[in-house]
């Protein structure tokens, strides 16, 4: 009788920096999570549709294009629309500190930059999803 932590890792938008997303996906797997990887070039609509079907506990976006404000906001709005209220939205990539604060104030979870230890990401997701959707 176990429900493992399920996380969707996606690269929204047009940028091709997928190394971070792949490294993070593998690290979360190594932390015992079941990670659905959707690959590059996902629109916010595709990300949220996949998250709904996969019944994930968290959505993790990896953004290096500079379009993070638009992308995170759009995904968050679609999550609300689809009723994914107990799902964590987190992520990382190249996101300036002040934009992280802005997004956090709007309901996005923590966002991580280059060099963050992988253990820290997994620990955050495990702790935060446990609060939002107890298993």
């Amino acid at each position, binding site marked *: 009788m176990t429900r493992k932590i399920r996380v969707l890792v996606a690269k929204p938008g047009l940028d091709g920096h997928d190394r971070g997303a792949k490294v993070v996906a593998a690290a979360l797997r*190594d932390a015992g999570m079941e*990670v*659905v990887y959707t*690959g590059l070039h*996902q629109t916010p*609509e595709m990300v949220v549709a996949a998250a*709904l079907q996969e*019944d994930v506990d968290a959505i993790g976006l990896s953004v290096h294009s500079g379009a993070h404000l638009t992308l995170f906001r759009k995904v968050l709005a679609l999550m609300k629309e689809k009723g994914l209220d107990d799902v964590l939205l987190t992520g990382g990539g190249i996101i300036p500190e002040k934009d992280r604060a802005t997004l956090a104030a709007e309901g996005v979870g923590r966002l991580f930059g280059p060099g963050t230890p992988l253990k820290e990401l997994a620990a955050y997701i495990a702790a935060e999803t446990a609060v939002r959707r107890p298993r």
Partner: protein
Amino acid sequence: MTVDALAKGIVAGDRRALARGLSLVESGAAEGAALLDGVRARLGRARRIGVTGPPGAGKSSLVNALVREARAAGAEVAVLAVDPSSPFSGGALLGDRVRMSEHALDRGVFIRSQASRLAMGGLAATSHGMTDLLDAAGFDLVVVETVGVGQSELEIVRQADVTAIVLAPSMGDMVQAMKAGLVEAGDLVVVNKGDLPGAASCRDEIVAAFGMTAESGGAARADDVLLVSAATGDGVKELLARLRAIPDAVVAERRITADARRVDAAVVRALADLRLKPAAASLAATLTPAVRRGDVSLEEAVRTIVAAAVGSDREARRP
């Protein structure tokens, strides 16, 4: 949401309810079993198509192409895509969706990834139940992609209505597949990547091998070996038509066998669980050193432990 409300939602086409229901079934919790009970009357409508074969043969790409053809023909399709769990962490990286992005926004398609959780045979222990729920949700086709299997165990062949074995034109794959009996296991053998050089001759070799090895019916199976390309879509329409053409009577017969096996497997699991009963487990712990010392024979120890396992809890506690 209560199990009852979930069941109603699933049958009414609520995708969120379906997603949550699948998680319940996957968890092995009692609510999952109750949910399946609640939709029992809706089972049996969908055709269940199995897609298996070695890693990298193009199973996910081919499922994507099959879904495209099925949608063009007006069918609604669910996909259950199983990938292996890591034996080290228990986690999993589920990447089959990467190849199926084009269907992400299609209401007539539902894609779910599943980790094998170290079950053998290319599927997870709960894949069958999850397939049932997808069937109950009203899809015309439920396509199940297995973990990349190269070896013998092929649970999908026993569960699906019809199964395609997917191979890619590489000698290594072919030899392995033939050795393991993979080629004989399914209804159709699909040589994918037909756009690559060597694919056509790979198909010919498999056909020739059938002719040489099969005592009878070898020739009849020659047209069960199809050359397709998931990349270009060549041959995929025919493949889908062949998969859907399996007669209802054959499917009905296979489902009877599948159900019998399923009951049997559940009994085996239940029996295996019995040895975890405290009475049996503690006897096993104390008898093991006795067996090692030679004070008790292995047979006698087994008899004692089994008696404790199958006896009622009250009997088992009796000295």
